[in-house]
């Protein structure tokens, strides 16, 4: 019952959250498909989510906002890429400006949620999120590995700088 594994892969810039629930697959699915249920778990109680549009069909849009304790509203949206009830959801999640229009300056996250029935009527849900990956990400990780080398070479900085 609940999260069984979280796997983060900084190289691929992905995170996979695996959870198991002692509930039928249809009930687990409904927490995504019913906007009133969705908004109760998507945002924390002090930063509640309000789902405005909810069209869970391929090409459809889900829009929501989260309200800060100060009353500030942060708009967000999903673009529904693919739906295979009750087994799979492909979503793109992004930020929006105050009018609810997608904010092009902000990166979006791709989600794939898969649902599988386990023996005994339980359900496994796997949420995989992928950030806008790029060769830049590989570069970052590579640079992280070069950290030791960089430190070791610290003392010859000045020499090389004048080369």
């Amino acid at each position, binding site marked *: 019952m609940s999260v069984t594994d979280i796997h983060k892969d900084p190289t691929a810039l992905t995170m996979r959250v695996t959870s198991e629930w002692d509930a039928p697959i249809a009930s687990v699915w409904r927490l995504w498909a019913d906007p009133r249920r969705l908004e109760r778990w998507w945002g924390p*109680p002090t930063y509640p989510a309000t789902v405005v549009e909810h069209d869970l069909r391929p090409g459809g849009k889900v829009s929501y906002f989260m309200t800060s304790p100060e009353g500030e509203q942060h708009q967000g949206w999903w673009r529904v890429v693919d739906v295979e009830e009750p087994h799979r959801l492909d979503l793109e999640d992004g930020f929006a400006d105050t009018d609810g229009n997608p904010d092009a300056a902000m990166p979006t996250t791709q989600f794939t949620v898969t649902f599988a029935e386990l023996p005994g009527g339980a359900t496994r849900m796997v949420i995989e999120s992928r950030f806008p990956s790029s060769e830049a990400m590989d570069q970052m990780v590579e640079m992280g590995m*070069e950290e030791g080398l960089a430190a070791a*070479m610290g003392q010859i900085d000045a020499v090389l700088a004048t080369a």
Partner: protein
Amino acid sequence: MYNRMVVDERRVTRAEVERADLLFHALADATRRDIVRRVLQAEHSVSDLARRYPMSFAAVQKHVAVLERADLVTKHQRGRERIVRGRIDAVRDVNRLLEGLETVWRDRMERFGEVLAEGGQGEQQ
């Protein structure tokens, strides 16, 4: 207390996503990546960097400015030279981003379990 943490995580994550975007943009260019690689290993003056690439001094200067905005390098004056140095901390930011996101999802899944446990009742808040 618990809620406060969640709220803060949400903010941190948003800010860090924005920051990651700056980083990706800065590192999307091969010359800029090469500059970062060089100045992580040893500080270089802007004019020394300019000599190493087949482009104008102004063009190299622009690349350095983009890297500086993304906090990947720092620049300081030494005599008549401007010295560029790499910031390894920037590389660690991506890991922080992933860690912040893990917390967001752990909290979400906890609430998911609570809503699920209520079963097939109506849609009351």
